[in-house]
């Protein structure tokens, strides 16, 4: 029975080697960064890098959520609408006299509830995820526009604290009393993003939720026959996506100190693009949080860099769209089925 004895390597071999795909993506990110640093003035400055991180953080968080969903071979098109609804609802609740922090928690909760709704539509009514979330995208957008009459309204001042404050800000006061900002500080949004990356990386790699998401996306029937409660774990991934969309919603509302019922339109596309650029497969079963983070930062660096070089928003769309296609094309070419032996 002991023909194959365990050796140290077989135990150590557990960690999958960093795939070539993620290496290429990361390389592309570094290359972009270097190119823009050389070509665009003021690109590689502390202030600009921080701004970029701030702008990208929301894409990253939405991307993480949709990565979980896509890994189960699902999709979430309602992200942008959830962003608008959660932010708007939080502002309305705060304006009704509820403390801002509590209103924000409620906003995030509403996002998670929207995710739960998506999950139930998909698992109970057996709707294809594309259809279910396409429907909820329209419904939720309709709801937020209806309750606000499409008007944005200001929030209480302290509602803006979360997204407009920074940590590690270093200020020097000169002798003449003038204030000189040495380091502008890191936005809370970026810190929250980093926290989310850590939490959901752990969740995907080290917990049942992540393992089962990958198993379900790779082979749903085998997962079911292994006793995995497929529906439950699918719903969990949609709740994760809804939660993170809700979080982005309240952060954006906090940053503007206003509700934005028309905000967030098309955000799901950036989120999906960041996941896909980061190597997540729409067929399910494949995807990493690290990849999505890199994917979102490629989008962020591209749009900031191109803006600084004077490219219009429209031109940026062309470039980012091309990057999505290129990223997946590279993946496809690398994964051409190898001819098998007889």
């Amino acid at each position, binding site marked *: 029975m002991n023909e*194959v004895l365990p050796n140290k390597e077989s135990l150590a071999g557990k960690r999958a080697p960093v795939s070539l795909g993620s290496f290429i993506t990361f390389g592309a990110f570094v290359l972009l960064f270097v190119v823009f640093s050389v070509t665009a003035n003021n690109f590689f400055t502390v202030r600009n890098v921080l701004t970029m991180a701030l702008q990208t953080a929301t894409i990253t968080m939405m991307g993480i959520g949709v990565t979980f969903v896509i890994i189960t071979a699902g999709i979430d098109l309602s992200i942008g609408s959830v962003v608008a609804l959660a932010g708007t609802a939080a502002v309305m609740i705060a304006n009704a006299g509820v403390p801002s922090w509590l209103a924000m928690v409620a906003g995030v909760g509403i996002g998670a509830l929207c995710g739960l709704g998506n999950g139930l539509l998909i698992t109970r009514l057996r709707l294809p995820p594309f259809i279910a979330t396409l429907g909820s995208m329209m419904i939720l957008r309709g709801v937020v526009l209806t309750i606000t009459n499409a008007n944005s309204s200001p929030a209480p001042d302290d509602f803006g604290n979360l997204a407009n404050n920074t940590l590690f800000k270093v200020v020097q006061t000169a002798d003449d009393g003038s204030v000189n900002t040495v380091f502008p500080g890191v936005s809370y949004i970026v810190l929250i993003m980093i926290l989310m990356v850590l939490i959901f990386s752990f969740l995907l790699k080290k917990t049942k939720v992540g393992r089962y998401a990958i198993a379900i996306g790779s082979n749903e029937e085998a997962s079911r026959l*292994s006793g995995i409660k497929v529906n439950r774990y699918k719903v969990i991934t949609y709740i994760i996506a809804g939660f993170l969309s809700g979080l982005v919603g309240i952060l954006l509302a906090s940053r503007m100190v206003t509700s934005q019922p028309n905000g967030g339109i098309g955000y799901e596309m950036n989120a999906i693009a960041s996941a896909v650029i980061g190597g997540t497969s729409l067929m399910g079963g494949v995807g990493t949080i690290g990849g999505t983070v890199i994917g979102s930062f490629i989008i962020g660096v591209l749009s900031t860099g191109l803006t600084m070089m004077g490219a219009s928003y429209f031109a940026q769309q062309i470039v980012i769209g091309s990057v999505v296609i290129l990223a997946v094309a590279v993946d496809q070419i690398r994964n051409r089925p190898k001819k098998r032996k007889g």
Partner: protein
Amino acid sequence: MGDVIFKAQDISKTFPGVKALDRVQFELRTGEVHALLGENGAGKSTLMKILCGVQQADSGTLTYKGQVVRFSSINEAQEKGISIIFQELNLVPHLSVAQNIFLGREPLTSLGVLDEKTLNANASAILGRLNLSLDPRTILRTLPISKQQMVEIAKALSQESEVLIMDEPTSALTEAEIDELFEVIHGLRERGVGIIYISHRLEELQHIVDRISIFRDGKYISTDDYGKISMDEVVNRMVGRSLENKFPTRANQPTDEVILGVSNLSRKGVLDGISFDLFRGEILGVAGLMGAGRTELARALFGADPVDHGEVRLFGKRVHITSPSAAIDHGIGYLSEDRKGQGLVIRMTVAENITMANLSAVAPNGGVISGRRELEAAQRFVTALSIKTPSLAQKVNNLSGGNQQKVVIGKWLFCESKVLIFDEPTRGIDVGAKFAIYELMEKLAREGFGVMMISSELPEILGMTDRVLVMHQGRLAATLVTRQTNQEEILTYASGIKKGSAE
């Protein structure tokens, strides 16, 4: 048998790290059915792919109708009259029979519009030549697999094929359907078509085969007329050694302790009043024709499909199993027939597959998986079951069929299952590796598991089981004691010729 129509000489083919074919030869005559036999990895499929242009040989010559040929694509081979029918059918489920037969070669009217009338007429003519009564307008998806296969044959025929390669054509067919297929093959042979026939089912060769060629480990071994070589000799040559004992000796006797009791299990149109007991230490066979409800019985016991009524008792206690996870909690494991589709997540690793059904055992802290515990658990079963894998992080996709089956067994042992239901446990597994699976089943029985084995291979049922349930059309036709029965008796019950009652 006529003249040699297709000849391969000194064909070699190397893949990175593997010499798939080493100077092999093969010859096909017109009007002959020539079986190509060998274990998985013997090089049969590679040679077939070279013959039909899917792959190209590194060296060697192909001679077709007296001319040296080299096909660079499957289309080129097809134009010359060589067709292949793969194990997985290449048809479009939502198109009609006729549309499938002429896919890519649709007749057009003078206006350049699809000419459905001519299409259906041409298809009818071809189906007629095969003596098939099929409406060419039938949507393919509505046909049983066997008929779909006939459509694939019709498609090959419509291209005026003179050489037809069939890769495991009977693997998904029932006995009756196989007979029908054989009739078609006989018809083609009489018309002078040369047929290369690949199959793992040696017992069916007698009905159709003229000659047998055997490959082993990428090398050509022999070619003989059928009838001049015994099946034992065929098997010896395939595995390269004599397999005197195809089955391990059963060392234990089943106890009289009932592990699993089933009464009157029914599901409308599928299962009809099934009752039986499974004893500790027993291997209980489940025989029957395809569609008799054997897999359905297993899935019902495992909670994968609902039941209308019936009672299931485990260790004397009544249990209600409504989902696979409930079945697993009660100690039932199901090793499905379709390992890659249902038993394993082939893109995940050996370790991940072994722990999949009992992840909580390696995730003690609120769902956080302990990498160390997971590897220890996986290693335990890799060692105990002699799973040949370079590492625990190997994707199961890269393992052989036998080792994949062992991974599934490991998965259920890790769940501490007490009842294991094997569904066609050796299908698609090499002759040599089968024995290892049988040994494992024997060991499980000896250690006090209750083992059920669904199998279409009666020698396997007779060689391994203590008793055998014979199913026919969703009913239990008979419960037989294996030592007191034989192949013929099982078949008479399975085919419904003899209607018995269950014990």
